[in-house]
């Protein structure tokens, strides 16, 4: 709860650590700090270990204690790049829809396998949705429970064959990861 004293403003780029009132230790590079709202934004290495990603933490310093500056900023922070707002808005919308869709499936009683399949397909084919317990891919292919290869139906074509491929690989747990990798590769 210790409010930073005057002059203890965080400089962008410095590393700080703190302890929240909930007992969570947080550490990261200062990205932004708003004195009025006492909101501090930290950038941390991705918790999932992905190199290109970061975890961003927004901290209300009003509920933080033990704020330590590990090291001060060594260089002038980089200029801020302009942002594509529409792109962000789209991301927000799709993320929301995805979550709602997922929630729909869950509430519809779709099996875990089905959800898993949906998520897997959704990774590469965004145009997939739930229809009851059926997964509709590209409005073309329908995958009905129990979501096996033979359950994939639709107009013969690349879409159907592709979906079947995904489904068939999903059915083999060991290949699950590989499948995703392949999908990523192929899709790219």
């Amino acid at each position, binding site marked *: 709860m210790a409010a930073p004293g005057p002059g203890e403003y965080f400089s962008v780029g410095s590393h700080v650590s703190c302890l929240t009132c909930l007992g969570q230790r947080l550490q990261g590079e200062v990205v932004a700090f708003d004195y009025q709202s006492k909101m501090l*934004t930290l950038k941390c290495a991705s918790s999932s270990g992905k190199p290109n990603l970061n975890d961003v933490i*927004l901290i209300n310093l009003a509920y933080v204690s033990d704020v330590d500056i590990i090291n001060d900023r060594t260089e002038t922070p980089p200029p801020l790049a302009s942002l594509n707002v529409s792109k962000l808005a789209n991301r927000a919308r799709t993320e929301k829809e995805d979550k709602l869709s997922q929630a729909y499936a869950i509430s519809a009683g779709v099996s875990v396998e089905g959800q898993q399949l949906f998520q897997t397909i959704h990774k590469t084919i965004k145009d997939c949705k739930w229809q009851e317990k059926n997964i509709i891919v590209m409005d073309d292919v329908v995958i009905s429970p129990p979501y096996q290869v033979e359950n994939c139906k639709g107009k013969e074509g690349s879409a159907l064959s592709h979906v079947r491929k995904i489904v068939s690989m999903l059915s083999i747990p060991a290949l699950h990861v590989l499948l995703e990798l392949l999908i990523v590769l192929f899709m790219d």
Partner: protein
Amino acid sequence: MSMKAGGNRSKPGGGNTAGAAASGAGGSGGGRQNLGRGRHSGKGPSPVIFNGVYANMRMVHVLTSVVGTKCELKVKNGAVYEGVFKTYGPECDLVLDAAHRKNPEPSIGPRKEDIVESIIFKASDVVVVTFKDVDLNFARKVSSDTDNFTDAAVSGRINGEHKEKDLEPWDGGETHNSDSLESLDTDVSNGWDPNDMFKYNEEKYGVLSTYDSSLSTYTVPLERDNSEEFLKREARAAQLAEEIEASATYKARVALENDERTEEEKYTAVVRGERETHTLSRENKYIPPSQRNREAMSWGPGRQNSPRLGQNSAGPSTPRPGPHDYSPSSGADQRVVNGGPPRMSPKSQRTPRAHRVPPCRTSGVPPGVDLISHNAPGEVPATPPTRSSSSGGTWSSVVSGAHRPRSPRQNSIGGASPGSSSLSSPQTATAPVETVTTPTSASSPTAASPAPNMVASPSGDAKECRVQETRQTSPSANKENIKPLDSSPSITRPVCKGPPSMAPDHRKQIDNLKKFSVDFRLQSSSNPDPAFDQMMTKPVRDPADKPKDLPLDKASTVGREGTEDGVVVIATGTSGGAPAPSTTTSNTSKPGSPAALSPSPSAPDQKRAGLDVTSQGVQTTATSSFSGPKHEEKEEKKEAVQDQVRKSTLNPNANEFKPRFNTQPKPANTPTPPRPQGQPSPSIVVQQPPTVYGQTVCFPQMYPLTPVSPGVQKSIIWKSPAMYQVQMPHMTVSQSKPYRPGKVPNMPQQRSDQHHPPGTPTMMHPATAAGPPIVAPSPAYSAQYFTCSPQQFTSQPLVQQMPHYQSQAQHVFSPVMQGSARMMAPPAHGQPSLVSSSTTQYPEQTHTMYVSPGPMPQQYPHHSATLHPHPQHPQPSATPTGQAQQGGPPQHGGPPSHPAASPVQHQQHQQAAAAAAAAQALHLANQPPQQQMYSALAPTPPSMTPGPNPQSPQASFPSAQQTVYIHPQQVQHGYNPNHMAHVQQAHMQSGIVPSHHPAPTHPTMMLMATQGPPGGPQPPMPQTALNPIPVSSTTHFSYLAHPQGTSVSQHSEENVRVAVFVF
């Protein structure tokens, strides 16, 4: 903190200005401010004062960068909410979309009901917000390092200074160019003169050209002298140059460069011209056989199918031609033609003609149409030409008269008649003559002449009578030559047809014809060969025989009745010959004549216009026996063919028909009475069976269609058709069978249709029954009967021809035919004819559509399946109708109703086929019925039917394609067992199904549909009559509707319609 999103947009940028001002507090504020300014400037010049967080550029930037990512937000009480970060407010209130309170149990995702659309968290309640795995560069528009030269990067660096660049007007500088520009507009010269270039280069660059106009570097100058050698060479060179320059190739190539015609002339007018030429020539001008052939040939390629059709139709058509002056003249012409290469390649000629005919139809040439329709395949072609050539009017009138009557009659007579009638009726509705012609053409095209004739004969003399009446009516035109002549003309036409088909045999035929001319009746009656002989002779005879023919014609004319009888007889003769020698002769003559006459002869006749009368007379005389039949109608020829075909079965019917004919014919000509006698159709039937069978081989092909009436035979035949056909050709070649062969050859195509007609004949009976319809019709029917028998015979001829066709177009046709045949076979009743017609039609259609082959295959399967049944059916008698068609004639009495219907259908089919063959265009040209038929696929021959038929057939076909299969099978199963009609339906369905397969091509579909419809229609008709009608309710309905329209006659009409549909 509850402000929310108020500043969403302004956030990122907004913060900047504010940031700059307000964030002075921050150590890095300066930098921020700068950055912020940059952004702000980007966003907009308006000075916006940002409050709170929005004033903190860095905070705005980072928070904006994580918009749209999932985050976990912990509040003071320790609850954790998960949602999509949507936005934030100036007080750093946070908005999460689709947020839900995260449960301790990690596994299960949120339920729909757990999710809140969006939640606004006050900054004061928020302890920490975690955005995992965020790509902070996700929304970064450009990486400054990598994208320096894009517009965005460039403008981005300007950062805020949106000052528009000042546009500067382009200064062209000196105006010296204006001169040259002007010169470009006024300079007419084609670039620089070479000498100017040389001069310019020399002056400007000092380059001297070594150009030598003599090109001595490349060639040696010619040393001219007066030596004999040189003169010789020079002369030789000049000669060669002349030859080269005179060559069509050279001209064609030069024309490409020097063609001053407008594009319209080159690309629009050409077609018209050709068509017109063909049609017109046919109608009004005499076209040399060779040219005709050419035309035919030209058409032929596309219309290979037509050959059969032509042949088939030819058989019928020939009769038509015969009736008219055309037949005579045409006979002669045909003879000539046939005698020539044309005859030799009757098929080709025929086909061409047939092809032509379709065009004619399309073009609207009534005669051609009639011919086509009548002659369906062969005759049509030939006849059309003849008609057109001789005198479109006369022919048309004659044809129309005959045809119309026929068609109507046919329609009235049997189911076949329905189609024809429908067609005819429409046609009739239109101008009697022309319309009639068209109608007839329509009806006659395929079945019309054949079918009609057949029908007439089968259905009874009534049809013939009608036909005759019609003839008489139209005959007036024919009468030009002489009413008798008219009758004879028809005969002659047949004769002519014979020649075409017989082509090779033409000479023989001619000889035979001569004999016939002398002994016509006897020969014809005695042997089909006579017909062939006639056919053969006709070509030859035409010239020489013409005189004879004239006498004969006179004789025949003298007693048109005789002629009619003859016709009938012919039919019968062909079939059985028993009826009466004369009749048989007529039949034979018909066959022969039809083949020769109808195909090319008719054309020649017509072309010979002038000769028409004389030639007709001659032909008629030649045909005298023929003429009788012919007069009865080219139909008779068809009938003859059909009769032949029918002979086996038809004869009985034929007899019946003949009587009617006689009655009706009488009006037109005494011949009718003879016909009744001739009706010998029974006898014919008898004969036919043999001949037919012998021919059957040929028939098979034909039969495919005919199968229905012939049913078993046809079906059987079909299988062997190829074999037979091949043999048949030989047969035809052989004079022994002259008449039949001749007829057959000619008939083949026509006959094939006619075969159907045979069925139609049976149909005719109904028609006859109902029939009185039109006088002409009866004749037509009779003719049809004849044709039918002829067809059977023709089937042989056809076979012969077929070989050609097969070899040439047979591929398509045979397949189609087979397919249709199969289809037909199922129909066994009248369907065979229908099938045949349909097949023929298909072929024609195929021309347009052609994919039909595909359909064919499909059909085949079905057909095959059905065929087997059909064959059986026919044999059993179950096929009475079927038999009636082929052998049907005999059965005509009983079966006739059904058979008749089928016959009618056949005729119609033929006609329809012819019409179809003529191309849908014909349909258009033709009356609505045909069109409808075709369009509808013949389901509803008449206007009404088209719709229904199409619907049922089409619907079943198109949509059903997949489904259709089932239907076919089902239909076949159920139907076959039940009735021929069923079978037909099945066929139809099968046909439909095939179409589906072919589906790719609508045409095929159309064809299929047409086939299907026919089958469907027929079946329906039968069903309606029989009750069995399970077929498609729709079709039935349509059909039914028609049937209902006119009870008996209606039935016939229905049949016709059905036939149409089949087509």
